[in-house]
């Protein structure tokens, strides 16, 4: 179900599927609804505007299209049309920008509904990048006169060859869907969505000793189709649905000319890119409620298949090397999926509830295994025979919980979850996680709510196969964090207060999770998370309100490694901290003519890494920092019932410290030709003015 249609379902939902309301016992013959202002006709509310952007910014242009300095025009608005049972609503947004969107939804109550939409979503990553490569179709060529060298300091033509190349892309999304209601019980829906995405992304291209960061062109199309037939009655429903996702890639290979001095014949190198694939899934879902038992049961079963048949590139582009023939021309991949879910929720006890759910997911990769004899980075033939590994897994999740109202103000809950995963071709074949939790919810008074929950889980494995790990070159002491034994404690507490006598609301939340990988000698050994947040809202008067929210989060982890390929000889401590604050103030109808809205947001992130190595003194990386500030003011003036003027001002900054980019000019590293991206240091001031006009007036029936 695509997003638009899911919203439609939420909005229309079962109004159209609804049984007749419980009107049978009431005499409504005199209920004339004379004062009901049912409205008909067209009504619209549109804003034509213009604005000015002070500076280029990839970060702030991301998703907004406001990435370039200069003026822009814009059109936003929404409208609706209603006549009898027929209704349309539409929205246009940011039509003057690369983030434009338009959507139309319509319905004939009780008969059908539909939606048509178009959206663009710009992705802007870097506007500080530059490259030597010239792009032609699926190839990146060196500039004329380029002189190869073994290291970047020998690139004599680098300075004159670099050309600015933004790392960015655009996604266009087209949607159309509809639903037909065949009587009060049956409905049929169909949705189609196409996503076109093209642009440039960063792709590393390497040989044995050096690498180049390539501005890789890409051009993707994904078509999705959802179809569902549903039968819904008072106490039951059943639905059969089919989903198709078809991914097409215009460039399933990337060729680039090697700027470094390389092996003879390895002047042009190649990578395979995302293969074209198709995913289909059929789902049968149903539900039944037992009103007398106050019990609802849900069932869902899906089977699916992913296929991929993109033609392989040869082992190497190096004509000087003799490679084996490929075992087959395409992978002819086939992955079967199965998903089953069962849920039963019952309130058979007046003061209690029991909930059971079971879920099973399977990924069965049926792709044929073959022996492949790779050419190592187009340089050395005979990399050794290897079998491709079609990873499969089975995953089940069982949950049983119950809650009971001890008193009107006190509810206690407890639950048990069990999660099993079986995997093929990995260090751990079978893994089980048991979780127990409890919860207490107290309501000492109206609008006052305290909720505390906590629990623990233990994830265990049948055997961490060190021999398997060693066969793949791993240090046998390594325990991959998603496969390793883990003991977790977790808890969460919320306190919310919305007094009936005062127009304020306060909510305080805190949670933690503490993971210990006590049986891991190498890899992740410890991970903690802490998060607290506070929300405050105050409706000062009918037309004036303010809000404040603030949050803090800390994520810490410790991992051990071994340079000597033995026991641990280095340790890294990672800590990510975030502090966020949002605040706003809204005043409407100041002097009956003016509205004022002010929003401020600040987000600070700091990531610190301490490295303690047996070979060197303890060392701390410079902190990775991100600081985002955002201040927006809107002043509205209502000239008349139809005309309104809006003035906007927006100031936003984004500053980062990032050692992975800082000073990494294209030739900063001898063996890496980079794109020279710099850490973000963006600032924008945007002013805008909008003329808003309300069109049409729906006539009363």
């Amino acid at each position: 179900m695509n997003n638009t249609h899911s919203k439609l379902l939420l909005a229309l939902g079962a109004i159209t599927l609804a049984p007749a309301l419980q009107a049978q016992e009431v005499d409504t013959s005199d209920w004339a609804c004379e004062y009901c202002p049912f409205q008909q006709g067209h009504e619209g509310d549109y804003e034509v505007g213009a604005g000015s952007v002070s500076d280029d910014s990839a970060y702030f242009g991301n998703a907004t299209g406001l990435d370039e300095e200069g003026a822009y025009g814009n059109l936003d608005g929404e409208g609706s049309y209603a006549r009898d049972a027929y209704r349309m609503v539409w929205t246009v947004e940011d039509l003057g920008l690369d983030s434009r969107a338009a959507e139309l939804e319509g319905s004939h109550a009780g008969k059908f509904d539909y939606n048509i939409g178009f959206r663009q979503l710009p992705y802007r990553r870097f506007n500080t990048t530059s490259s030597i490569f010239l792009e032609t179709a699926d190839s990146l060529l060196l500039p004329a006169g380029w002189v190869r060298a073994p290291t970047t300091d020998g690139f004599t033509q680098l300075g004159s060859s670099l050309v600015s190349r933004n790392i960015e892309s655009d996604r266009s999304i087209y949607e159309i869907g509809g639903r037909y209601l065949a009587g009060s019980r049956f409905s049929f829906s169909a949705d189609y969505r196409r996503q076109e995405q093209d642009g440039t992304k960063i792709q590393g291209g390497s040989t044995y000793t050096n690498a180049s960061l390539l501005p890789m062109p890409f051009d993707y199309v994904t078509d999705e189709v959802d179809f569902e037939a549903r039968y819904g009655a008072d106490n039951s429903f059943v639905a059969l649905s089919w989903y198709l996702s078809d991914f097409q890639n215009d460039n399933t290979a990337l060729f680039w000319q090697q700027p470094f001095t390389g092996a003879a014949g390895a002047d042009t190198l190649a990578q395979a890119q995302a293969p074209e694939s198709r995913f289909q899934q059929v789902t049968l879902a149903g539900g039944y409620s037992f009103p007398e038992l106050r019990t609802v049961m849900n069932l869902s079963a899906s089977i699916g298949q992913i296929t991929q048949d993109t033609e392989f590139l040869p082992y190497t582009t190096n004509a000087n090397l003799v490679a084996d023939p490929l075992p087959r021309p395409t992978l002819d991949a086939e992955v079967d999926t199965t998903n089953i879910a069962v849920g039963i929720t019952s309130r058979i006890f007046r003061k209690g509830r029991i909930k059971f759910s079971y879920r099973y997911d399977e990924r069965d990769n049926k792709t044929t295994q073959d022996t492949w004899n790779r050419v190592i980075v187009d340089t050395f033939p005979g990399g050794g025979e290897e079998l491709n590994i079609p990873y499969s897994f089975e995953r089940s999740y069982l949950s049983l919980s119950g809650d009971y109202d001890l008193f009107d103000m006190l509810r206690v809950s407890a639950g048990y979850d069990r999660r099993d995963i079986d995997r093929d071709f990995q260090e751990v074949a079978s893994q089980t996680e048991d979780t127990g939790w409890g919860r207490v919810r107290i309501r000492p008074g109206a609008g006052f709510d305290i909720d505390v929950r906590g629990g623990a889980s233990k994830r265990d494995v049948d055997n961490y196969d060190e021999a398997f790990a060693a066969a793949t070159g791993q240090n046998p002491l390594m325990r991959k964090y998603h496969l390793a034994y883990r003991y977790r404690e977790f808890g969460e507490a919320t306190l919310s207060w919305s007094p009936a006598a005062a127009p304020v609301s306060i909510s305080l939340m805190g949670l933690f999770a503490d993971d210990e990988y006590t049986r891991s000698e190498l890899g992740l050994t410890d991970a903690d998370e802490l998060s607290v947040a506070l929300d405050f809202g105050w409706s000062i008067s009918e037309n004036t309100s303010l809000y404040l929210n603030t949050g803090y989060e800390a994520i810490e982890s410790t991992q051990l490694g071994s340079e000597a390929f033995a026991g641990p000889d280095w340790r890294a401590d990672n800590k990510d901290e975030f502090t966020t604050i949002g605040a706003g103030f809204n005043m409407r109808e100041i002097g009956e003519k003016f509205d004022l809205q002010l929003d401020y947001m600040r987000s600070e992130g700091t990531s610190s890494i301490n490295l303690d190595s047996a070979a060197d003194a303890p060392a701390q990386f410079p902190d990775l920092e991100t600081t985002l500030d955002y201040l927006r003011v809107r002043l509205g003036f209502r000239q008349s019932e139809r005309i309104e003027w809006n003035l906007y001002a927006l100031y936003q900054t984004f500053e980062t410290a990032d050692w992975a980019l800082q000073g990494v000019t294209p030739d900063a590293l001898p063996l890496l030709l980079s794109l020279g991206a710099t850490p973000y240091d963006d600032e924008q001031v945007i002013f805008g003015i909008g003329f808003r006009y309300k069109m049409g007036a729906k006539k009363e029936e």
Partner: protein
Amino acid sequence: MRLLTLVIAGTLLASLAVSTADGQEGPDYSREGADSCLSCHEDEAMLAIFRTKHAVPSDPRSPFGHGQLQCEACHGPGGDHAGRVRRGQERPAIPYFHYGSTATVEEQNGQCLDCHNSGVGFGWHAGEHPVDEVACVDCHQMHIERDPVLQTATQPEVCFDCHQATRTETMKAFAHPFFQDKMDCTGCHSPHGDDVATSLVRQTVNDTCQQCHAAQRGPYLWEHAPVSEDCTLCHSPHGSNHPGMLAKRAPLLCQSCHSQFGHPSVAFGPDELVSGTPSRFLLGQSCLNCHSQVHGSNHPSGSKLMR
């Protein structure tokens, strides 16, 4: 399956012991339906209901359809509330959806589910929201032409009212475009539980992510095992301090699992930043400078995810 059978059997047996007899007579409805209500409740915000699908007279299933109970279809019998009260006497509250209503969350939601059960109600019972006693009206607004929780730009803030930790995550420097009002929670999550007893719109995490990121689906000749299993093993989809919404900075993220002899095991430190002896294993794209096909490779020579 044995456990499932036991639970079903237990549920059926329990039905024998349950009695739901309720022979009491219900309260009165108003004399004139909506006209009674609108004689007092005539403000613009209240009347916005008449611009919504709940107020379509020609739809017999709408609350305002012919023969239906109009305002009282949702708010419950309003006879006492609309009736005369003595001087100084407090006017009785309307049964549902108003300040002073004594109805429980479950009773209020029952008013909605009476009509919406077959569309959303079944999954609702299977989800976490009813356990947390979330009322339909905690998220949805009926007396407004465009419900904020159904609009992309305004929906996240509705969800963040309760999911505060998620708000903090989405405000991080690298996140999906919630803050830009271009993505909503229901792009990935199914707040009503849908039909599959998960909080996702598709069957699995990967199915959900690959709606928009189908390029990562493969299946590849050389798969990267965690990619095939669960995107969130490496990515933090609500937001991160690291580009690509990665859970941790490379190379340490990769070194959480990879310990092969040689460079995968080396502790690259601050000495290898640009100010020292810059390392291609650490800077730029770190491991991805060479192993760029981290989601998998479809190249016959791509077993090390370099082609």
